[in-house]
C-alpha cells in the first residue's frame, strides 16, 4: 500500500522540487547579472501557460508519441533511483539498468524532433547525441568504478555503505578523482553553460525545441524539471552519501545545483567539437585513472 502511494506521488513531489529548482536557477543567475529576476514560482506559470494554449500544432503521430517517450523514459529512471523512504524498484534494478534507461529520453527526443523536419532541430539533435558520447563515457566509468570499489552494483547498498562510513565514507572523499570527473560530466548531462551546445538559443534557435509549441513544450519542460532532479540524485547517491531523510536530500540537491549554476553563470559556450574534446581530455582520463587506482 505504501509502495503504491509512493509510485503515485513520487513524480508529483519530484516535479514540484524540480520546478522550484529551475525557478531558483533563474533567480540565482538574474542576481549574478545584477537583475531582480523572476519570482521563484515562475516555472509553474510557464508550464501552466503552455499547457493552457488554445492551439497545438502536431507534426505527425511520431511527434506525439516521442514526446510521451521522453517523459516516460525520465519517469522510469526516477523509479529506479533510491530516494529517502522509497527504494522498491531499486532492489530489482541496479546501476546497470539505470545506465541503459538514462538513454531512452535522448532517443525519444531524437525521434520526435526528426518528425518535425526542422533543420535547427536536426542540428540540435546531432549535437545532443555528440555530447552524449562526450559525457556518458566518463559518467558510466565512474558508475563502474564505484561498483568495483564497494563490491555492489545496487545504488541502495552503495548509500548504506557510504552512510556507515560517515562523512569520510562519501564517494567524493574516498575517491576524489571519480567524484570530480562525474561532476564535470554532470555539468554536460544537465546541459549547463559550458556544454550548452544542444540548446544554444542564439545559434540554432533552441535546437530540439524549435518546432515545439504549446502542450509539447509544456511536457518537455515538465520532463526537464524531473530530469534535473533525477540526474542530481544519481550524483548524490554515488558521491555525496545519499540521503536518509527528505530535509537532508533537498539541502544536498540545492547545494549541488548551486555549485553547477555558479559555473554556468560565468562561462560562455564551447563549440561542439571543443566540448567533446574537453570531455575526452579532462574527465575521461580522470575517470580512467580513478578506476585503475581501484583495480590495483
Amino acid at each position: 500500500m505504501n509502495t503504491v502511494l509512493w509510485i503515485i506521488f513520487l513524480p508529483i513531489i519530484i516535479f514540484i522540487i524540480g520546478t522550484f529548482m529551475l525557478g531558483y536557477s533563474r533567480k540565482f543567475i538574474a542576481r549574478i547579472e545584477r537583475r531582480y529576476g523572476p519570482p521563484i514560482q515562475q516555472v509553474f506559470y510557464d508550464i501552466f501557460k503552455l499547457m493552457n494554449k488554445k492551439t497545438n500544432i502536431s507534426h505527425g503521430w511520431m511527434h506525439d508519441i516521442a514526446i510521451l517517450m521522453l517523459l516516460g523514459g525520465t519517469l522510469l529512471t526516477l523509479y529506479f533511483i533510491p530516494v529517502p523512504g522509497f527504494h522498491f524498484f531499486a532492489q530489482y534494478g541496479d546501476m546497470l539498468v539505470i545506465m541503459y534507461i538514462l538513454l531512452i529520453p535522448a532517443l525519444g527526443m531524437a525521434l520526435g524532433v526528426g518528425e518535425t523536419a526542422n533543420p535547427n532541430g536536426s542540428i540540435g539533435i546531432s549535437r545532443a547525441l555528440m555530447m552524449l558520447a562526450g559525457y556518458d563515457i566518463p559518467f558510466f566509468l565512474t558508475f563502474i568504478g564505484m561498483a568495483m570499489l564497494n563490491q555492489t552494483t545496487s545504488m541502495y547498498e552503495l548509500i548504506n555503505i557510504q552512510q556507515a562510513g560517515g562523512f569520510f565514507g562519501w564517494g567524493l572523499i574516498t575517491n576524489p578523482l571519480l567524484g570530480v570527473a562525474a561532476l564535470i560530466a554532470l555539468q554536460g548531462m544537465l546541459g549547463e553553460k559550458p556544454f550548452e551546445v544542444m540548446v544554444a538559443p542564439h545559434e540554432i534557435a533552441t535546437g530540439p525545441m524549435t518546432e515545439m509549441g504549446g502542450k509539447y513544450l509544456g511536457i518537455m519542460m515538465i520532463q526537464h524539471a524531473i530530469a534535473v532532479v533525477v540526474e542530481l540524485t544519481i550524483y548524490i547517491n554515488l558521491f555525496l552519501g545519499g540521503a536518509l531523510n527528505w530535509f537532508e536530500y533537498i539541502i544536498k540537491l540545492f547545494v549541488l545545483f548551486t555549485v553547477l549554476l555558479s559555473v554556468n553563470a560565468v562561462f560562455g559556450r564551447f563549440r561542439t567539437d571543443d566540448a567533446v574534446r574537453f570531455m575526452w581530455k579532462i574527465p575521461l582520463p580522470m575517470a580512467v585513472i580513478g578506476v585503475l587506482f581501484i583495480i590495483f
Partner: protein
Amino acid sequence: MEEKLTQRSVWEKISNKLSKRSLWMLHYCTGCGAIELPPTMTARFDMERFGISPMVTPRQADILLITGYLSVKTLKRVVLTYEQMQAPKYVVGFGSCTINGGMYWNSYSTMKCLDQYIPVETYIAGCMPRPEAIIASFNDLIAKIDRGEANSWKDYYKNYDFYKANQDRTFEGPIETYNDIKADAAMFNIK
C-alpha cells in the same frame, strides 16, 4: 453581444490570472528600434521580473513585438511568423511607423497601418519609445489579459477574409502561408 464577450467562467478567470505572469516575446526587428530592447531585458529595466522573457522561435512565443517600419517584403515574413505562433498570441506594434507610417508616410515601399494585415493588441507610440514605454505597454497588456479583454487573436480566425484581402492587395496576389487558418479555427473550436 458585447456582454457575451466579457463573460468568463471561473476557470477562464483563473487561467487568465496565471497566464498573464508568463509571456514569451519574439521580437521582429528589421526596422529601427531593436536597440531599445537590450536595456529592457538586462539589468537596468529587467522585464523578466514580470515573467516576460525573449524567445527565439514563433512556435514558443506569445508576444510578437514588431519594431519600426515594415516594407512589403518584410510584412510577408511577419504574416508567415504570426501564423506559425500558437494562440493565444498578442501583437505589439512598437513606434509610430506601425501606427500610421510615421516618418515613412510618403515612402513607396513601406506599409502604413499594421492592423490592416494582422490584429494588433497594443501599440507603443513614439519615435523611438524608451524602455520605460515598452515596460508600460507590457504592463497594459498584462492588465488586459487579466481582464480577459486581450482577444485580438480570435479576430484573425473570425475575420480572416478581411485580413487576407488586405494582404493579397499589398502582396499583389496570394502568398503561400503553410497554415489553413479556417481549418485551424474549426479544428481547435475557436469562436
